């Protein structure tokens, strides 16, 4: 590009940039519009950028220069001076006991200052082992009533909480209705599945996402986060994916009016594992 052509193009893009800036002001005053703002901002910024690059590339001399590197490390002489400056008046070699005591004092201070970290959260305590389900808690949809889940169609699934208490999201439970003959549960677990209705924790035992997908034809629950699949007919044991533990089953009983009550809290912790969950 000749120098004149380069100059003219730089002026052109700077001019376009200026106009785009004014344009942005106008669009803004008129109420704004994201796509137009984006395009105008591109012209405004890009005009400046293009102009500067053309200027540097075509209107400035491009000479190659050579600079010696020198050494990164300090010269031996200067290192000596550095060491002398550090040690001359300090005399630390005679104060080893004091230095040790000072370090000990800093250690104590450090421990004291670190303690407030524990204020960041409560001791885990029993919270990981419990949900808000109790003996007698009625199963009901959040903001709903127990009657709404008293008569599910076969293949139906509902998210339920203890009626009147949605305060603990980890209590989220799936109430599923299947044909009773299809269930293959241990005798104790079978008692907790009246009339083909069975309740499992909705919190995935892998990483804690809600197990929100139900493949009714296969009677499996699928977690969308990492694709763990749980067999509803066989105690929600994992049959595919990275989950290693079945979804805990909530012990429930059916009342005369068709509604469901829990017989107690989950017999094991819900959700992802932690080191002492078997204790």
């Amino acid at each position, binding site marked *: 590009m000749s120098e004149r052509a380069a100059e003219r193009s730089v002026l052109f893009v700077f001019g376009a940039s200026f106009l785009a800036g004014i344009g942005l002001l106008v669009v803004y005053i008129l*109420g704004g519009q*994201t*796509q137009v*703002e*984006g*395009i105008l*901002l*591109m*012209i*405004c*910024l890009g005009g*400046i*950028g293009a102009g*500067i*690059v053309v*200027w*540097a590339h075509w209107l400035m001399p491009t*000479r190659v*220069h*050579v*600079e*010696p*590197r020198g050494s*990164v490390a300090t010269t031996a002489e200067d290192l000596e001076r550095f060491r002398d400056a550090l040690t001359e008046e300090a005399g630390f070699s005679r104060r080893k006991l004091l230095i040790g005591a000072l370090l000990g004092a800093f250690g104590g201070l450090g421990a004291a200052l670190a303690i407030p970290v*524990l204020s*960041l*959260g409560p*001791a*885990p305590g029993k919270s*990981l082992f419990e949900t808000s389900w109790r003996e007698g808690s009625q199963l009901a949809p959040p903001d709903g009533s127990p009657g709404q889940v008293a008569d599910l169609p076969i293949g139906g699934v509902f*998210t339920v909480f203890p009626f009147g208490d949605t305060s603990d*999201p980890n209590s*989220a439970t799936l109430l599923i209705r299947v044909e009773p003959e299809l269930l293959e549960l241990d005798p104790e677990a079978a008692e907790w599945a009246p009339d083909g209705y069975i309740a499992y924790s909705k919190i995935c*035992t*892998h*990483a*804690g*996402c*809600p197990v*929100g*997908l139900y493949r009714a034809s296969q009677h499996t629950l699928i*977690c*969308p*986060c*990492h*694709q763990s*699949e749980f067999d509803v007919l066989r105690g929600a044991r*994992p049959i*595919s*994916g*990275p*989950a*290693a533990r079945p979804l805990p089953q909530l012990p429930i009983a059916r009342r005369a009016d068709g509604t469901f009550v829990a017989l107690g809290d989950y017999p094991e912790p819900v959700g*992802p*594992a*932690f*080191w*002492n969950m*078997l*204790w």
Partner: protein
Amino acid sequence: MGWLDGRTGIARVVRAALRKVFPDHWSFLLGEIALFCFVILLATGTFMTFFYVPSAEPVIYDGPYQPLRGQEVSAAFNSVMDLSFDVRAGLLMRQIHHWTALTFVAVVILHLCRVFFTGAFRRPRELNWLVGFGLLVLAIAEGFTGYSLPDDLLSGTGARIAYSALLSVPFIGPWLASLAFGGEFPTEAIIPRLFVLHVLFLPALVIGAITIHIVLLVIHKHTQYRGGVASEANVVGRYFWPGQVFLSTGLFFLTAAILALIGGLFQVNPIWLYGPFDASVVSSPAQPDWYVGWLDGALRIFPPFEPVILGITIPAVFLPGIVLPGILFTIVALWPFVEARITRDHREHHLLDDPWDHPVRLASGLAILTAFGVLTLAGGNDVLAFYFGTDVETLTVLFRWLSLILPIAVWLIAWQFARTRSRGGPDEPGHDVPLAGTSVRRGASGGFEEIEQ
């Protein structure tokens, strides 16, 4: 100028900088572009901090987006909705910010690859490699904390997974998770904490690390490719002023322009489609931002393994979620020291390598990239299964095998290829590369000049 200099002595300092020489190669622009991305993130991010409300307090959404009207959402979600629909240029800022964040991590990784494959991490730059690696980790952390701020359903699910990963650490897991989140998941405390991390703590660390990164670069001077009069004892290129300053500034504006266009035209993170976070609900498919995809992929394809050793449970997410990233990151971080040991090369290097001249390094770098690549693809195993008309289980098994076999295969192929290509590179003892065509003369003033021969 005289007024200012009389009070600061600035001309003296700046004069030395004006004539510093910078070598010229397109691959050297990657680090700069990463820096520019960070500046744009700061600018757009600062704008947004005036509108974002870092609180999980429930409010009723009352804005122009009809499908969510009347719904209970958190104040944070509500504020991001307002920013997107009611604040002029709000959505533009949000989208530029998010696209730039995605670009930022990508460019940092490209820059890391350039430094790695050309051997620029060797003495004296091992420290700078560590700082740079720290910056990559900080960038990913910034991204994660940032996209979790709107408290939408998708990012909240990601927060739950992070909580479970913390929880999985033996002995200290439940405490770590409780201290980080302020209790058992879900908590209201996590939103303001992520906010403080994202806008105060992490940016401070990033700015500090960038400063150290650039100071070291000034002390070491930039590396350069072989050719012409370039040698281990010089730097050949253009002066800092005006050439380098103009070109870098121009590049900044061009980078910003492209990101502005993308941010204006292309939707990203449409939280109104995800809805507010609710711990008992989830959306499908559920993928994190791309730079966390490898971690999600590892969680997906790792076989179900939750052993109990002496009564102590090792949770299923511990190995893929904590140990694996730890191992991969450690390998990458310590590579300069490992390579120096293996090659027994502790000399200073300022000339860059041709990647083919170091078969083990080339192969190892490509293998690690392959591993991350397979894991990233595995993070979309449900989406890929849908598009290829297969089932997730089959694809997952395939990915398990690929994650082991492909990196090894790539290593062997790249190593063999490089060995047959390389004729024994310049760093091998006894090999000298003749400099082509030019020579250097020392002028009367003491500086060096090149003369065409």
